[in-house]
């Protein structure tokens, strides 16, 4: 559906502009897992206000937007076991790899960072394989 692609591109530009502002003004990498992880494990305690402010914006603004526009569904599975396992994998994996889709993907690839490109190749590969196995072979997602 081309309309979805246009919205994807427009949303992507917003994400890229956000990351660009964070880099050029604050001198930081806009990586979601790093920002959250640094708060959680204490490694980012010295600049916790900035991290908390970013997370607050990330939660509040989509909340207000969906409240006004409405009708947003995440279509997340109702299977709690899958949600818990997936959440643990995402938490451990992104912190072990030091980045996720925003840090390695958006910020890393745009810098032509080898680590960012390789990490992205691995998580997309693993994600694709997981969908093939759990959706098409096992039929659980």
């Amino acid at each position, binding site marked *: 559906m081309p309309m979805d692609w246009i919205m*994807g591109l427009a949303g*992507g530009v917003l994400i890229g502009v956000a990351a660009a502002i964070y880099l050029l003004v604050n001198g930081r990498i806009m990586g979601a897992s790093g920002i959250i992880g640094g708060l959680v494990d204490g490694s980012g305690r010295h600049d916790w206000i900035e991290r908390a402010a970013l997370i607050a914006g990330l939660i509040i603004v989509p909340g207000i937007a969906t409240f006004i526009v409405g009708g947003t569904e*995440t279509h997340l599975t109702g299977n709690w076991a899958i949600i818990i396992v997936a959440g643990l994998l995402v938490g451990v994996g992104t912190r072990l790899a030091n980045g996720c889709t925003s840090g390695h993907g958006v910020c890393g*690839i745009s810098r032509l960072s080898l680590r960012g490109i390789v990490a992205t190749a691995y998580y997309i590969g693993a*994600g694709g394989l*997981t969908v093939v196995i759990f*959706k098409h072979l096992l039929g659980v997602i």
Partner: protein
Amino acid sequence: MRAFISFLVGSLFGLGLLVSGMTDTTKVQGWLDVFGDWDPTLAFVMGGAIVPMAVAWRFTIGRKPVLGAAFPTPPEPKLGRNLILGSTLFGMGWGLSGLCPGPAVASLSFGGTGGVIFIVAMVTGMMITPKLRSRLDQTAVAV
């Protein structure tokens, strides 16, 4: 001031994730589902985000951040076990749920109980990672 910029950045980031459809797990799993009904939206999102960021990186050369001491130095181009193993585990969780950290947080207000459970599990995973990492390092030395 830095905190205000951070709030603004988080707001734009969240709006971008919402507009692009990345808070919808079916779009993410659709992108990963190359053998099913493949959805290319995520490629447009990535492309759209990488372009302004690439310009920003070019702009950092020979300059300083407006409100900071220095730009982040490039990481060592080392592809260690943690990068490969971590990205693989992350990809598995991403494929299972269709959520990565940014959209998971951005959809907290409208993602229901499942979304909250995901965040709790993700944060738990993040909390145990430092311990897990040192355990892995010890095993690597022993092997």
